[in-house]
Each structure stands twice: as C-alpha cells, then as structure tokens.
C-alpha cells in the first residue's frame, strides 16, 4: 500500500473506531429512550463514572479485563438504583420531571466524582496485549483501536440477539408498543424497565472503560463525549438501534475525513450533517413518526 492510500485507509479505520465508541455511548442512551421514553441526561455522567470505576479497579487489581467486567456492572447497579428509587416515582409526572431528575443526578455524580477521586487527571493504562501496532497490508495500525471496533461489534451483536431473538427482547418490545396489554398478561413492567435502564447504563459503562486508556479521565469527560452521543441519537432517530449504529459510523467517518479534506470545517461537520438530516426527516434517519 502506498503512503497516500494508507493515509486514506487509516482515516477510514479511525472513523470506524470513533464511530464505534459513539455507538457504545449513544446506543445505551437510545435503548433507554426507545424503550422507556426517558431522555436520560445523566447518561454522560454514567459513562464518566464508569471510567472512574475502571481507574479504581485497575489500581486495585492491575487487571484491565477485570475492570472491563466490573466497572460497567457497578455503573449499571447505580443506573438500576436511579430507575428504581427515583425515576419510577417521577414517571407519572411526565417527561419534564424525568429530565430534571436526570439532570440533577448528573450533577450529583459530578460532585461525587470530585469528592472521591479529586479533580486531577487520572491515568488508565491499556493492557500490554493491546498496546502497539499491527500491520494491515502494509498499514501500521494501533491494536487497541481495532479492539474497540471488535468489542463494539460484539456488544451490537449481543444487543441485537437480546432484543430480537429472546423472550426478554419480545417482552421489552411488546411493552414499548402496548404497556397496558403486557401488564395485563402478568408481566411485571416496572421490573422490565428497570432491567432496560440497567442495560442502557451498562452500555455507557462499557464505553467509559473502553475510552479511558485513550482519553484523560477527569470530571469534564461527560461533557467531552456526551454531546456527540446526543447528536447521534437525534440524527439516528430516537429509539432506533439501527439508526444509532449507522449514524455513529457516519459521524466517525465524517469526523476523520472531515479533518483530512475540510479541516477548517471539521468541528462543525457532524452538526451540519445532523441539520441536513433533520431538515429532510425531522424524526431522524431511522426514527418513527409519532
């Protein structure tokens, strides 16, 4: 592969890797909104919280894989607590109450992070096996970024199987479509929604761990990535997993090729794409008209 070709190919893989990170964050947000109708403004904070959990587990055990397993579970646990003891009661009061509640929770998480971990930048090392470069037909590419693409692919596969090939998935989809009917069939809807919320925050948790070795773990992490995730959800269509996947990849590619060809416009190219999509399809690329 000549130098120019390898540069363009590298930009494509960078785009895919970043897109997959966005997918991991945005899909959790999307799952929660799609299934429960809650726009979880604390989603970015959960993502950040997981990066901090990852830091602590790594510090205690020195094992990244254990951190990848535990940190998202801890995060999901807090997500479940939020749903069970705070959001469930607010649900009857409508979306505004939920919005304010999740915003408040994000501020509480931010304050807690500062109390427990401080304000300084915390380092998270990637596992040695994922360090270094691999040769792809002459292109030297970082192993860790390929790992991100692979892991996101696995999560996507699990989510698809869970939603479309299992009984639980059927129940969830049915509950979204007609909550009363599913309830009448004797299925405990609040528990289903609690599980959905847990899964959504777990996905944010996975993203938090995956991104920690690439970014600095600090209290501004939620703001840094959270906004891009919201753009993905809005552009892909609220509640659409397919939309989240496709738009995440498009955003990733726009971001990397934008830097390559239109570097001055790179910072706004994602927002421009979102504006274009919403102008044509106000409900998002794969969103369903209410």
């Amino acid at each position: 592969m000549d130098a120019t070709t390898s540069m363009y190919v590298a930009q494509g893989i960078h785009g895919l890797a970043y897109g997959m990170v966005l997918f991991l964050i945005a899909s959790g947000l999307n799952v929660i909104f799609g299934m429960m109708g809650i726009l979880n403004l604390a989603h970015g904070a959960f993502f950040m919280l997981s990066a901090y959990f990852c830091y602590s587990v790594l510090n205690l055990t020195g094992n990244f894989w254990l951190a990848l397993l535990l940190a998202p579970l801890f995060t999901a646990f807090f997500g479940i607590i939020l749903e069970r003891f705070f959001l469930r009661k607010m649900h009857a009061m409508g979306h505004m109450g939920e919005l304010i509640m999740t915003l408040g929770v994000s501020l509480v998480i931010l304050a807690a992070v500062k109390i427990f971990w401080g304000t300084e930048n915390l380092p998270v090392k990637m596992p040695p096996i994922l360090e270094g470069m691999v040769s792809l037909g002459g292109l030297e590419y970082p192993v860790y970024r390929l790992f991100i693409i692979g892991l996101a692919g696995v999560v996507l596969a699990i989510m698809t199987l869970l939603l479309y090939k299992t009984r639980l998935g059927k129940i969830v989809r049915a509950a979204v479509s007609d909550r009363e009917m599913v309830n009448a069939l004797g299925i405990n809807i609040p528990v289903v929604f609690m599980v959905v919320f847990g899964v959504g925050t777990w996905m944010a948790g996975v993203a938090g761990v995956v991104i920690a070795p690439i970014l600095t773990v600090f209290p501004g992490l939620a703001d840094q990535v959270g906004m891009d995730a919201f753009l993905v959800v809005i552009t892909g269509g609220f509640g659409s997993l397919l939309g989240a996947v496709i738009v995440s990849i498009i955003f990733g590619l726009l971001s990397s090729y934008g830097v390559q060809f239109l570097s001055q416009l790179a910072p706004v190219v994602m927002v421009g794409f979102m504006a274009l999509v919403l102008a044509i399809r106000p409900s998002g690329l794969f969103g369903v008209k209410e």
Partner: protein
Amino acid sequence: MKCIGKSVLIFLCIFSLFSLTIYSPSTAMAAKAIPGSMAEKVPKVNAAFDVNKMGNMSDFDPSNPIIPTGDTIKIAVVWPFSGPGALNGEIAWIGFAWVAHDINKRGGIWVDGKKKLIEMIKADSMSKPDQAKKICERMVLQEKVNILVGTSGSNIQKIINETGATHKVLTVNIGSLADELNDATNFSRYNFMSSDSTEQIGRAMAYFYGQIRKKEKKFYILCQDYSFGHGLAEGFKTGLKEYYPEAQIVGEDYHKLFLTDFAPYLTKIKASGAEVIYTGDWTPDAGNLLKQSRQTGIMTPFANIFMDEPIMLHEVGVEGTKGLMHIDHYNMPNMFKNPGYVKYYSIWHKLWETKWKTAPFNSTLFAHGTGTIGSWTQQIYWMLSVVERAKSTDPEKVIKVWEGDTYKFVNGRIIKMRACDHKAIQDFEIAEYVTPEQQKVYFSIPPYHWFTGASGPGPAWLVPAAKALPWIDQKLERCADKNGWGE
C-alpha cells in the same frame, strides 16, 4: 619535566572547565548576561523576592488555609472551582493560599497607615461568562475586594477586566495569554497583564528553532480553535519569518476544545513529514494529544507550552515523553544552582512530601511548584510587592508604582511591566525533555531528576526577552511611537 607536567595538568584542567561551559547549555547561560536578556537590560530591579524574609510555612496546608477576616486586603481569586476547568482553580488556589500564608506570617503589609493581612476569597467563575460576570460584580459590590485576579480563559479574563474598569477596581491577569486583552480596544488602566502572551510564546519558540537549535525545518501547527490557539500560531509564524525563513510549515490545523479523537489529525501530520508538531494545547487536550500520538506510533516531538502536566507525562512514560520541547514561563536554566531558589523549592517540596495529604494537593502535579504553579505564585508576590511599595490599596497609587516596575522572581527570572499597555516583558526558557538519568544537567540537587516515571527538563536554553517582546498595539494612544520595550 615536573614543571612541564604540572603546566600540562593545569592546562588540561582549565581546558576541561572551558569545554564543560561550552557544551552545557545551562551552564553557558549563567556565565554572563545574554545580549537582549532581562539580566542585561535590567541590571538593577526595583524589588526582588527574598527567600530569607519568608514567614514560617511549616503549618501551611492548601486544603485548610488560614484565612483572616476584618480589615484586610481583600483579593478575589476568580477561577473555575467547579466544572471541567476546576483543576485550574486548584492550581491557582495553592499559589494564592501560599502567598497569603507567607505574607500574613510576616505580619501583613503596611498600607493606608496600618499593617493589613491578606484575605484571599475564592470566586468561582465555573468557566462560564455569565457566572463570571455575576461573581465579579458580587466581589466588587458586596465583598468590597481591593483586587480581582484571574484566570484561565481569555473570555473570562475579559469580563474581569471590564468589571474592574467599570468600578475602578484593580484587576490583574496572571493566567490568560491572549494579546487582544490589552490591545487598543480592550485596554484598561486598571488592568495589569503580568502573565506572558501568545505572540511572545510563538516568537520565542521560533527563535529557539531558528537561531539556537538549527536542526528541524518542517513544522506542523496544531492548536485549539479559539483566540488563544490562533494567537499562538500567528506568533510562531511571525517568528519563523523573522528568525527562521528557511523553515517550512507543512501543515496547520485547529481542533475544537476538548477533542475526543486526535487520530485523524495525527494521520495527516504523519503524512506531512513534519519533524516537529507545534501546539499550544492545554489540559486535557495536551495530554490526550500526546498520549494518542504515541499510541498511534507517532513519536514526532511536540514544541509545547502546556504539555508538562506530570500525571499525564507518567502515563505516557519515559520513552514517549523524551524529546518534547517545552517553553516555560517560570523555570530558568540554572535555577537549581541558585541557593535562594533551592531553599524556597525545598520548603515547598518538603511540605508536599510530608504535610499535604489531601487530594488534589498530594498528587505529583503539586510536587515541585514549578512551571505554571511557580509562575502564578510569583506573579502574586509581585502584585503584593507593588501594593506594599505603593503603601496603599488605592488603585491610582498602585498603578503609578506598577507601570514600568521591575521585579525578580525567587528563581532569578526578571520581569518588567511595560508602562504603556501593562504587558509583562520577560525572558523564556526552552527545555528539552530527557530521561531521568540525564536530568542532572538541570535538576542539579538530589535526587537529580524531576520524576522517575517520565522524561523531564534537561538541557535548557534562554530566549532573551528582546527576541520575543510582547506584541504592542500602536493604535493604543499610550503606546504610539513606543518600541517593544515601551520606551
């Protein structure tokens, strides 16, 4: 024969000493004042920090500062103490608390007919302009502060300056580098910019590469996409034209603040064949840029101003941080050969080792008190020295003393306040990051290195002030027909 042997031995000794002087850049700087440097231009300063007059610092703890109340000199510390920029607030706070503790232990400052203690008040800007406006107004109108001091972020500093100008209260800028803050449009008599500025940094770096290092020729500019980043880039480009015309800018990009993924920029940089990446990025961007470049196999050195945060440097490790070229607005070549500075440094470092046990002050970031922490701390000392010499907190009296004033920091750095536009003139140090074993050339006291887990400043060079004078806006009436020294 014995006599000849002795003569040869003496000759060899002298020759060795001479050679050492030639080949050790740090030592060379100490030999005599470099033409155009502050030492040459200002042989006698108006005031200097005297370490022997310091108060007892043994009970100083930045997490639990002793803050006096009553009839005090009130200083508002306008910084973000919450939100993403909160760490900058902590970095500033330790400096303010340190200086206040020291001065108060000395008994305070004689002003307006009596000795007054220093009261530092945290004013949280949250890095948000509307909040900054509110808090500055409150500090002036309710708290009746004597001085507003800021900050990280030129947009916030602008608000501080405007508040001071409106209420005729002194404002001091120790942390924002944008040149436009003191241009013809924004200049206020009540504001003093004791920090360095963007064009100075850019030109100093260009001078270093063109006139001192004379090695790399291909530069890639990657800065943050706002006035500070663009200002730094412009300064560098201006400097290259002036000091290094044969240099080539092989690429120039500006990225959004708090960027997540630097890989696309790094791929472009790699393809450009750049030998040096020039960046003004500050944390967290600085850390993420460095980390991701090494993760993607790009080992090109960065010419930087804020890529010196120790936690981030440790994360990247010794190899990844080797070769960084860091311009510093506080450190000076040979400062560890200055006994006064070593005494000051030891007080700070010992307290960090033994007393500061609470986050964030127990982290490596605060271990040495150099770099930005050192610069901010010494600028506060300078400000209070001016107040002390004015014998008053009356802004008019302080302005009179500060305009054209010269001051020597504890580490030997000399700084001058240009009278016409209130911008500071100073030399700059540029240091090459080397492995811990090689840092003795700079860190010449035990343990002879900054840290063990990262590269740090080794060989260091001085860029004389004359080569990087702060930009002067001739449209500002007070500066018309004045040269870069304000004369």
